[in-house]
């Protein structure tokens, strides 16, 4: 029950952090960058790659530590905060929009997001196991 409340609060903060990063990065990117790179969803990219890296650490840590405390931490920080901070639906929405307008930026976005996330999360899983 307490873990569930923790997941709710952490999820709320995770979504708010995503909105915060979005509000900071999006205008900065639109101002600094010209077309066609402007279409690249830089804030979602940054949010998803950083969140995947940190979830790797949390998951690696929880896998090595069977104690209840570590599992509760993984539920609140991992499922709650990081799960809500990162977003799959927005990524797919951008992908759909870019497919119609800018296929090159789209290919870079999908492959870049997947590649960077997979490599950094694997590194995080290894790092978390060391803690």
């Amino acid at each position, binding site marked *: 029950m307490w873990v569930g409340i923790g997941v709710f609060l952490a999820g709320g903060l995770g979504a708010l952090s995503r909105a915060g990063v979005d509000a900071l990065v999006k205008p900065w990117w639109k101002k600094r960058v010209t077309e066609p790179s402007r279409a690249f969803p830089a804030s979602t990219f940054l949010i998803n790659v950083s969140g995947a890296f940190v979830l790797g650490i949390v998951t690696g840590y929880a896998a090595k530590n069977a104690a209840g405390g570590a599992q509760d931490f993984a539920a609140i920080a991992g499922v709650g905060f990081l799960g809500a901070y990162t977003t799959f639906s927005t990524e*797919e929405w951008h992908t759909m929009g870019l497919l119609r307008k800018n296929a090159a930026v789209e290919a870079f976005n999908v492959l870049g997001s997947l590649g960077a996330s997979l490599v950094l999360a694997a590194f995080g899983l290894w790092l978390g196991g060391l803690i």
Partner: protein
Amino acid sequence: MTVLAIIIGGGIGATLRYVLGLGLAPPTPPDFPWVTFMINMVGAFALGAVMTLLAAHRLPGPWGKPFLSTGVIGGFTTWSHFIVEADQLIGARHTGVGIAYLVVSIFGGVIAAALGARLAELRVGHPTSGRA
């Protein structure tokens, strides 16, 4: 109020995902991570519909976007778990399942978002999708 809408929406989305994961007992490798997969497909479909309805002013803008799109749906779907699950599959030498999970999720998500947008377009009666 926007901040409160995002926090409550994100809390609802994350808790729903947490409860589904507990209730359905998420499969461990080498199984296909279908709980996260279904969550992400449902969320992509819902976001496609909501963004289209927002663009057509069929949802209350000030609350609809922070609460529904950024909060509930953004908090419900997850990129980080999708990636870590794929990494775990590949790390456990179930590379084929891992790559299939990545490819099916990415393409399935785009199709789901397009279907959601199309359904909402039919509902509002004119094309609006693609504009966020």
